[in-house]
């Protein structure tokens, strides 16, 4: 096996779960996530010579994946659907914490999947993938300040959605 192939394989083994996880939260569907991951690794492999060694492979491949995802979503016009889920974040949020003790992992997963894409992706990249704001900014092509504000709004919405669920149950 060539050195390049070996290096790519090492990266694949190291980051495959991270990439799959982000794909799942982007697509909200395991079949689509598998397709997205496959397309992403194929493209990454094809353009691996352009990857600057000693830089962040995870950021690089997630950026590729986001580009593929955006192109695919535009084709399917899913964006309109996502915008319909926008919530009014200007309202006052309640500040009780009790409900947060009662939520489960699946509650939080469902709540993340329901977030509008712009907030969902920063939550995924920051809190699930553990990337720095600067890396997220490069992946989603926005200033660091925008990452910070989307994360803040995303967490506020998430908190509110979890509270709503708690109130309904």
């Amino acid at each position, binding site marked *: *096996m060539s050195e390049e*192939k070996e290096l*790519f*394989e090492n990266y*694949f083994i190291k980051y*495959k*779960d991270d*990439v*799959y*996880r982000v794909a*799942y939260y982007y697509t909200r569907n*395991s079949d689509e996530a*598998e397709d997205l*991951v*496959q397309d992403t*690794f*194929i493209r990454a*492999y094809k353009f691996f010579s352009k990857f600057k060694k000693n830089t962040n492979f995870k950021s690089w491949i997630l950026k590729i994946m986001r580009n593929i995802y955006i192109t695919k979503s535009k084709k399917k016009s899913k964006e309109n659907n996502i915008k319909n889920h926008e919530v009014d974040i200007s309202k006052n949020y309640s*500040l009780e*914490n009790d409900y*947060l*003790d009662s*939520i489960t*992992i699946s509650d*939080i*997963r469902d709540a*993340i999947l329901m977030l509008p894409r712009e907030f969902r992706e920063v*939550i995924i990249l*920051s*809190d*699930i*993938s*553990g990337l720095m*704001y600067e890396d997220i900014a490069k992946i989603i092509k926005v200033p660091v300040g925008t990452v*910070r504000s989307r*994360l*803040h709004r995303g*967490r506020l919405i*998430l*908190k509110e959605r*979890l509270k709503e669920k708690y109130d309904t149950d």
Partner: protein
Amino acid sequence: MILTNILINKKCKYCECFVNDYVDGRLSRIKEEEFLAHIENCFKVKGCKKCIELVKQFKIIKSYCENLRDSLTMPEDLSINLLRMIR
């Protein structure tokens, strides 16, 4: 004292900007201490505990999200297929 100067006499939304930085460990130790002292002071002086609550809530949400990291892995057959493709 830089952070104190920025936050003093400012409305909640200015303090809120630092909540995420604090939760995500992006503040230096000194700024972190200043931020915590400031939000505590907000509570004592103005009776406002919005940022204190947000810090608690965001920390809980973040920890739940971190737990999701291990709950989802690439399906074995997809992993095998992709590895085959690379090789």
